[in-house]
C-alpha cells in the first residue's frame, strides 16, 4: 500500500518489512522503526485529535515525548490504554488506535461548536460560568465531562502483568543522547555500576534525528560504538524505553520501563511495564532540551509543527511531514531544519527569521538551495482549518510588539515549522530540589545550584554545541564515578570532535507574536491561549502558581513541556516585569504519565496485601467459614451451615457457647514474652493496674493507655515465673504494642532489665468455651488437676493436651467457663481437629468473630477499637476499678486533666431499644429528642449492636454524654431518618455476677 509521504530513502526504519495498522478503522501500513505518529504522517494522515476544550482539529506538534496533541487510545478491550502519545507508540503489526475526544467522528465533530461559543470558555470558565445556581452544577458537570476531557479508561480488566523492581547503582545517567552516552562511557570505564536510561526505543537522543558528524563520520556511528562498549561491559545496565519520571529524596528515582508496549502482546509471564525504584549514588541528567512553539494566531492548525520535529520525521523516520514548507524561528535552529527538509524532497517556500538580520552563514547555505529567507518578519496567521493551506507573513516593528507595513503577504504551504528557542528539560533537576536560574540569552531556565548528588550536562544545561556537550558529558560521568568512589586506571576514551557549525547568532526572545485574529495557543493540550493568561492577570492573579491553576496552563498530561516558558513570558509581559520576577511553577513527579497498572505492580488481587493465615486456616476454608479481615489476618467471621444466613449461624454459635461447648481459633491474639528481673516493674508502668503482687501461675487483665490517657490496648497477661510474663494483645495491635514496649524500654527506661520478644507466631491458640469445657479438657489432658480449686479462673498451667505440650490459660472472653490452649503453631491444626473430634458428643460448635463479639458484649466486655476510638479513657468506660491510685503508669496524669475529668464526657452505657427486635446500626448517633431532622446535637453514638438469642432481644452499647449517671433515661438512636427510643442501662446484659466464667 502506498505511503505517499514516505521519502525515497533514508531514516532508521526497516523498509524491507511492512507493518499493518489501523487508525479510527482506516487501514494503513508502516515500517519497523516507525512510531504511530510517523506512520500516520507517512500515510498523509495529519489530523490526529480534537482539542480538550474547543474541539479544534489538531495535528502532531512534536516527534517525541513532549507531544501535546497526538493522544490516542491504543489497543482494544482490557488492554486498551487512553492518552497514549502517538509519538512514543512504536508501530507493531496489527496495532489499532483510535482518536479521542471527538463525537461522532474525528472529521466531523459536534463538540467543535464550542469553538463557535468561545466567549463562554474564558480562563477560569469552570469557576465562573457554571457555578450558579449550585443545584445545577451536577448537570453542568456532566455536560462538561462529556464535551471536554481526554480519553476514556477501559472497562474490562487488564490481562497483563506489571512489575516492580528495586535497583542500586553508583551512577545513574538519565538520557541517552550524546552527552548521556559520553557520561555513561566515562563512568563505566571506572568500574562503577552504571545505569543508562532513555525514554526512546533507541539510544542516541538528538543524534537520531539530526545529521551531524563526529570525527568526519556520521555521529550515530560513534553512538553505536559507545553502545556496543556499554552493552559488553559487565557493570552497565542499559534501559531503553525507560522514562525517569520522579526524582525523590536522597537520590531515589522512579523509572517506568515499557517492557512490552512495543509488542502486540507481552510474551508469557513477561510484564508489560516495569516500575524501577533506583537508589543512585550519583545522578547525571542528560535530559536534553525541548524546542518551544511560537505563539501566533492559529498556531495550532494541523501542519504546524516544531522545526526539530519536522527534522526528526525526515531524518529518523523517512517521512515528509508536508509537501511545501515554511519555517519560522527566532533562533538558528530553523536553518538546518530547512536544509534537511529540502534534502528530503520537501519544497521549502520560505524561512522567516524573527530577528532583524538573517544569519549570514546559514543564509548562504539556504541560498544554494534556493530557499528564500525573510528576516525581521513573523508568521501572523495560518490559513486552513483542518490543515495548513498557507501562512501570512508580516513585518515586525522594531520592538516586536506590533506589525508594520500592512497585513503582509500570504505564502502557500501545507507545513509550517516553528522554532521559538530551546527549553532545557529540567523537570527532574527541579524535582531533586535544584534551583533554576533564568538565562536571558537562552530565554529559558538553566540549572542552578544542585541540592542532591546530581549533575546536569548537555542541552539540559543549556549547551548546544555538540563537541562541548560530549566533553561535558565525559567530565560529568567521570566525576560522578569518582565521587562514588571509583577511579579509572589509565587514559580515558578519546573525545570526538564534531564538524564545525556556523557560530550562533543571538536569538530574539518573543513570547507573543503580534498580528492576526485567531487564537494564539500557549498550551495546546489544555487549550489555553495567550488571551486566557492575559485575562487571568487582568483579573488580578499575580502568582504564577495561581495563574496556572486558574487557566490550567501546564496542567495537562504533558506537564506543559512545550508550554511553561511561553506562559511565563506572556504573564511577565502582561505584568510588565521580567520572567525571573514571575518565577516558575513547581515541578512535581511524575514527569511523564505512569499507568495505574505499573504503580500497582504485582500488588493486585490476592497479592494486594499480605493475608495472614493461622495453622487452622485450611480447615476453616474447607468447613465453609466466611472470613473477615482483622488487621492483616483473615479470621473466620461465622460458619454458616447449609441454608443458614449470617444471623442464624451466629445465633447457633452463641447458643452453643452458652449451653454446651464452642471452640474458636484465637491464634491471632498478639503474644509477647517478657523476661527480666524488672519485668513486673515494667508492666506496672505500662498497665493501669498493679502487677507486682500477681502470683506465678496467675493471670490478670490489663489496660494500656497512651500518655494522653486514652485506651490503647487491653489483654490478659500471665506470670510464668518470677521475672517472666506472657502478655497477650488484641489481634490488630500486636505489632504496635511490641513497638510501644520497645520504645519505652529502649529510650526512656534503659535501666529496667527486661526483654520483650514477640511469640505471636510460635503459638496456635484453641479457645474452648461453654459449660462442658472442663469435661472436654479432662478427656484431652491428664497431667493437670482441672478442678476449680486446683485450676481456678484467671490462672494458667503447663500441661499436655491431646499429646501436645501446652500452656493452658483459664481466661474467658465469652463469660463462660473457658480454656485457651496454646500449642506450638505447627501442631495447631492437629489440636483443633482433636478438640473437634473429642467434643462431638457435646455438640462442639466452631464459632467466629461475630459470635465472639456477641458473647463478650452480653457480659459487657469492651473491644479496643470498637468501644474505643482513641478518645476514650478507662473512666469513660466505667473501668475505674482497673486504674491504680497507688502507682504511676503511662497516661495516668492525663486522667485528671480538666478535660478528661469532666462529668459530661461520652461514657459507656448499655442501650435497650423499645422495640426488642430492632437492631440499630453501629455508628448511629444518640440524640436527646425524638426528632432526627438536622440540625440536632449528637450526645454520642452506638459502638456495638447485636441480636442476642440468650436475651431474646437486641441490645447495644454506646458512648453517651454523662451516660454513667443516666441509667434508666430514654434516649433516641437516629438512623435512616428515624429516631428509635432506647433505654440507657448498665453495659452488662448477662450473668452480671460473672459466675459462669468462674465456675
Amino acid at each position: 500500500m502506498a505511503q505517499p509521504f514516505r521519502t525515497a530513502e533514508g531514516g532508521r526504519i526497516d523498509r524491507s518489512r511492512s507493518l499493518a495498522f489501523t487508525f479510527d478503522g482506516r487501514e494503513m501500513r508502516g515500517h519497523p522503526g516507525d512510531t504511530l505518529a510517523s506512520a500516520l504522517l507517512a500515510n498523509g494522515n495529519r489530523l490526529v485529535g480534537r482539542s480538550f476544550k474547543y474541539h479544534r482539529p489538531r495535528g502532531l506538534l512534536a516527534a517525541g515525548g513532549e507531544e501535546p496533541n497526538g493522544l490516542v487510545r491504543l489497543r482494544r478491550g482490557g488492554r486498551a490504554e487512553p492518552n497514549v502519545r502517538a509519538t512514543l507508540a512504536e508501530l507493531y503489526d496489527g496495532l489499532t488506535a483510535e482518536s479521542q475526544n471527538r463525537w461522532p467522528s474525528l472529521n466531523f465533530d459536534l463538540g467543535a461548536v464550542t469553538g463557535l461559543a468561545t466567549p463562554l470558555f474564558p480562563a477560569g470558565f469552570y469557576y465562573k460560568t457554571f457555578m450558579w445556581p449550585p443545584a445545577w452544577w451536577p448537570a453542568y458537570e456532566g455536560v462538561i465531562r462529556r464535551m471536554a476531557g481526554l480519553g476514556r479508561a477501559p472497562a474490562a480488566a487488564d490481562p497483563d502483568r506489571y512489575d516492580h523492581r528495586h535497583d542500586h547503582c553508583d551512577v545513574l545517567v538519565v538520557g541517552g543522547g550524546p552527552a548521556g552516552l559520553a557520561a555513561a562511557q566515562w563512568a563505566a570505564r571506572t568500574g562503577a555500576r552504571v545505569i543508562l536510561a532513555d525514554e526512546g526505543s533507541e539510544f542516541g537522543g538528538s543524534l537520531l534525528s539530526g545529521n551531524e558528524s563526529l570525527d568526519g563520520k556520521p555521529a550515530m556511528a560513534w553512538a553505536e560504538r559507545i553502545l556496543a562498549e556499554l552493552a559488553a561491559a559487565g557493570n552497565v545496565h542499559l534501559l531503553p524505553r525507560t522514562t525517569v519520571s520522579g526524582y525523590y529524596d536522597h537520590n531515589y528515582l522512579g523509572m517506568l520501563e515499557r517492557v512490552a508496549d512495543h509488542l502486540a502482546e507481552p510474551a508469557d509471564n513477561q510484564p508489560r511495564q516495569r516500575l524501577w525504584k533506583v537508589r543512585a549514588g550519583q545522578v547525571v541528567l542528560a535530559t536534553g532540551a525541548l524546542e518551544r512553539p511560537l505563539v501566533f494566531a492559529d498556531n495550532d492548525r494541523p501542519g504546524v509543527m516544531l522545526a526539530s520535529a519536522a527534522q526528526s520525521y525526515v531524518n529518523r523516520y523517512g517521512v515528509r511531514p508536508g509537501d511545501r514548507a515554511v519555517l519560522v524561528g527566532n533562533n538558528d535552529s530553523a536553518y538546518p531544519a530547512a536544509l534537511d527538509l529540502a534534502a528530503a524532497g520537501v519544497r521549502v517556500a520560505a524561512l522567516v527569521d524573527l530577528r532583524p538580520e538573517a544569519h549570514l552563514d546559514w543564509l548562504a547555505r539556504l541560498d544554494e538551495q534556493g530557499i528564500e529567507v525573510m528576516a525581521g518578519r513573523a508568521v501572523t496567521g495560518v490559513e486552513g482549518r483542518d490543515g495548513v493551506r498557507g501562512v501570512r507573513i508580516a513585518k515586525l516593528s522594531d520592538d516586536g510588539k506590533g506589525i508594520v507595513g500592512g497585513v503582509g503577504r500570504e505564502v502557500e504551504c501545507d507545513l509550517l515549522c516553528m522554532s521559538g528557542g530551546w527549553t532545557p528539560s529540567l523537570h527532574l533537576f527541579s524535582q531533586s530540589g535544584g534551583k533554576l536560574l533564568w538565562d536571558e540569552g537562552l530565554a529559558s531556565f538553566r540549572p542552578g545550584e544542585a541540592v542532591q548528588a546530581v549533575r546536569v550536562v548537555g542541552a539540559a544545561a543549556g549547551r548546544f554545541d555538540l563537541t562541548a556537550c560530549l566533553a561535558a558529558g565525559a567530565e560529568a560521568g567521570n566525576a560522578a564515578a569518582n565521587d562514588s568512589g571509583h577511579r579509572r586506571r589509565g587514559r580515558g576514551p578519546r573525545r570526538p570532535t564534531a564538524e564545525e557549525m556556523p557560530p550562533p547568532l543571538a536569538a530574539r526572545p518573543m513570547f507573543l507574536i503580534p498580528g492576526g485574529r485567531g487564537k494564539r495557543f500557549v498550551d495546546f493540550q489544555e487549550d489555553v491561549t495567550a488571551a486566557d493568561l492575559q485575562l487571568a492577570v487582568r483579573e488580578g492573579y499575580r502568582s504564577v502558581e495561581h495563574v496556572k491553576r486558574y487557566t490550567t496552563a501546564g496542567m495537562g498530561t504533558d506537564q506543559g513541556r512545550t508550554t511553561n516558558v511561553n506562559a511565563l513570558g506572556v504573564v511577565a509581559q502582561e505584568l510588565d516585569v521580567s520572567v525571573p520576577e514571575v518565577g516558575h511553577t513547581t515541578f512535581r513527579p511524575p514527569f511523564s504519565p505512569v499507568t495505574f497498572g505499573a504503580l500497582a505492580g504485582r500488588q493486585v488481587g490476592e497479592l494486594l496485601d499480605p493475608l495472614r493465615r493461622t495453622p487452622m486456616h485450611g480447615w476453616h476454608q474447607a468447613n465453609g467459614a466466611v472470613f473477615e479481615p482483622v488487621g492483616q489476618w483473615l479470621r473466620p467471621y461465622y460458619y454458616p451451615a447449609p441454608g443458614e444466613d449470617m444471623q442464624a449461624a451466629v445465633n447457633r454459635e452463641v447458643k452453643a457457647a452458652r449451653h454446651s461447648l464452642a471452640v474458636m481459633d484465637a491464634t491471632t491474639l498478639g503474644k509477647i514474652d517478657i523476661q527480666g528481673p524488672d519485668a513486673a516493674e515494667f508492666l506496672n508502668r505500662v498497665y493501669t493496674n498493679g502487677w507486682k503482687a500477681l502470683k506465678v501461675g496467675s493471670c490478670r487483665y490489663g489496660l494500656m493507655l497512651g500518655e494522653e490517657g486514652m485506651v490503647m490496648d487491653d489483654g490478659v497477661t500471665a506470670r510464668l515465673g518470677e521475672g517472666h510474663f506472657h502478655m497477650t494483645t488484641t489481634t490488630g495491635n500486636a505489632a504496635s504494642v511490641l513497638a510501644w514496649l520497645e520504645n519505652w524500654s529502649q529510650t526512656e527506661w534503659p535501666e529496667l532489665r527486661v526483654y520483650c520478644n514477640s511469640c505471636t507466631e510460635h503459638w496456635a491458640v484453641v479457645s474452648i468455651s461453654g459449660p462442658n469445657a472442663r469435661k472436654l479438657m479432662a478427656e484431652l489432658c491428664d497431667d493437670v488437676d482441672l478442678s476449680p480449686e486446683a485450676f481456678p479462673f484467671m490462672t494458667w498451667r503447663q500441661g499436655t493436651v491431646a499429646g501436645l505440650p501446652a500452656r493452658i490459660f483459664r481466661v474467658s472472653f465469652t463469660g463462660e467457663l473457658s480454656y485457651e490452649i496454646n500449642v506450638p503453631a505447627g501442631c495447631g491444626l492437629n489440636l483443633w481437629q482433636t478438640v473437634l473430634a473429642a467434643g462431638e458428643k457435646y455438640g462442639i460448635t466452631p464459632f467466629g468473630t461475630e459470635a465472639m463479639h456477641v458473647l463478650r458484649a452480653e457480659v459487657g466486655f469492651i473491644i479496643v477499637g470498637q468501644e474505643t476510638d482513641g478518645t476514650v479513657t478507662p473512666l469513660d468506660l466505667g473501668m475505674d476499678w482497673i486504674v491504680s491510685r497507688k502507682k504511676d503508669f503511662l497516661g495516668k496524669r492525663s486522667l485528671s486533666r480538666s478535660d478528661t475529668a469532666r462529668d459530661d464526657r461520652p461514657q459507656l452505657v448499655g442501650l435497650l431499644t423499645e422495640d426488642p427486635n430492632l437492631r440499630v446500626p453501629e455508628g448511629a448517633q444518640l440524640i436527646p429528642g425524638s426528632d432526627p431532622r438536622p440540625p440536632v446535637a449528637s450526645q454520642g453514638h452506638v459502638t456495638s449492636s447485636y441480636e442476642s438469642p440468650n436475651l431474646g432481644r437486641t441490645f447495644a452499647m454506646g458512648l453517651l454524654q454523662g451516660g454513667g449517671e443516666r441509667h434508666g433515661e430514654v434516649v433516641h438512636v437516629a438512623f435512616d431518618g428515624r429516631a428509635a427510643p432506647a433505654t440507657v442501662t448498665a453495659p452488662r446484659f448477662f450473668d452480671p455476677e460473672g459466675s459462669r466464667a468462674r465456675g
Partner: protein
Amino acid sequence: MLLIDCPWCGPRDEVEFSCGGEAHIVRPPEPANLSDAEWGDYVFMRQNRKGVHYERWCHGHGCGRWFNVARDTVSHQVLAVYAMGEAPPEV
C-alpha cells in the same frame, strides 16, 4: 524516600523504619506534681521546626533499635545519626 543510616545495619530505605517524632523529650519524673499546662506541654507540644530537627527513629524491620537523627526538614538531608541518650550534636 529517605536513606537512613542505621547505626547498626548501615544505610537502609525509610520504609524499614518508623519515626518516633521529636527527640530529647524527657518524661517528667513526677507527673502528679505537674500542672495541667505543664503535663499538656510534655504530652502534646512539639517544635515542628523548619530546618534542623532532632528526631527519633526505630529500625523496626531490621535490628529493632531506636536511635536519634538530626534531619533538615527543608532539604531532608540527614545531618547526624546518634545514640539514644546522647546529647544532640552541633550540626
